[in-house]
């Protein structure tokens, strides 16, 4: 009778299933809730600022439902927070795309500030910076949030919002010019 000895190399994940993202990708709802609670403040703030305080809670929920659906596509070639953040931006922009009036305002370029009622809102100098941000005209607010708050480049914003880089730059400048008044009233 021959003796048989088996040798094998084992590579096990350290500690088994300890990565909440991996667990959630495998269908663990409790793990996904932990992922949600960890990232909620940043996602909710991003959505609130981009959407101007409209439908923020519903959009935030939409983001996390989309995350749940797309977890299998996360390849780990970037930080999970980066992937999640980009997905959140896409969810908000997709909602904007259904608003044709909003889309037209983005394409109107420099006419935007002449047609919208922003001046009356921006005269309230007691408004703090964060509140003033949400009151900016839609296009300017989205671009300001993406560029100055979230760090996107103009060519990235142009692709996301389907506008020209020139329009992105012009609207960013307008947003900054409007917000500087509230910077003074903000005490900063």
């Amino acid at each position: 009778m021959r003796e048989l000895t088996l040798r094998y190399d084992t590579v096990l994940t350290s500690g088994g299933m300890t990565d909440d993202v991996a667990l959630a990708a495998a269908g663990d709802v409790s793990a996904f809730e932990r992922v949600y609670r960890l990232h909620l403040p940043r996602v909710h703030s991003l959505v609130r600022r981009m959407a101007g305080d409209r439908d923020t809670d519903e959009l935030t929920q939409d983001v996390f439902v989309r995350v749940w659906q797309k977890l299998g596509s996360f390849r780990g070639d970037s930080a999970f927070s980066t992937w999640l953040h980009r997905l959140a931006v896409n969810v908000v922009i997709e909602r904007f795309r259904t608003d044709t009036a909003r889309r037209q305002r983005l394409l109107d370029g420099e006419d935007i500030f002449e047609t919208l009622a922003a001046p009356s809102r921006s005269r309230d100098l007691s408004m703090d910076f964060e509140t003033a941000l949400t009151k900016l005209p839609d296009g300017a607010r989205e671009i300001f949030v993406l560029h100055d708050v979230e760090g996107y480049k103009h060519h990235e914003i142009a692709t996301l919002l389907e506008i020209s880089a020139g329009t992105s730059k012009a609207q960013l400048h307008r947003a900054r010019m409007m917000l500087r008044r509230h910077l003074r009233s903000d005490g900063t």
Partner: protein
Amino acid sequence: MTSDPFTDRLSDYADGELDAAERAAVEAHLAGCAPCRTALDELGAVAARAKALSDPAPPRDLWPGIAAQIAAPTARHPRVSPFRRALSARRFSFTLPQLAAAAVALMVLSGGLVWMARSGDPRADFDPVSAHLEAPEENAPAVRPANFADEHYDEAVADLQKTLESGRQALDAETIRVLEENLAAIDRAIDQSRRALAADPANIYLNTHLASARQKKIALLRRASALASMGS
């Protein structure tokens, strides 16, 4: 929009978006325009303030609504059938962390199984068992082909386990221990995949891993059965 072309370029200047000629022109203007210098400082302060914004938690807990949607897909978030998802997917890409739940056995086997046989003379190594199904060996017991649907898969596994059991005495204790550990790991991975799929049966990733884990169980049982047959 102001009529001052230099004021309108201040943000681009602050962000480094101007070419050399434009930048020089703005700098020349700034040297003689105090209001523009003030505006430039304020624009920079706005950008800095934006970067320093905090992210407070929302006042309302949104989890119940999310949990309800992921548990019961609605019209706003319809569940995509596996067939449709397979048609639209360009590729599957999975990270190593994503394999944790259902892939313990895959990683156990992907390192390679090296079977060594001793017959009193110097050891002879068998070829490592790869993670893929191999062509049936000459001494491998006849096995009903497994298509990994539950019924046929279970029958194939039962056949192999029966064959293995009949030749078990030909394997040494260490081999049996390692074999049982590997089978237990694969069975845990299969069980975890099945439970996860119960909540999300359309998940292509989980279906793929369940099929892969079953494939590896079949491969392991076939190899072990073959060795048990040779030794008896």
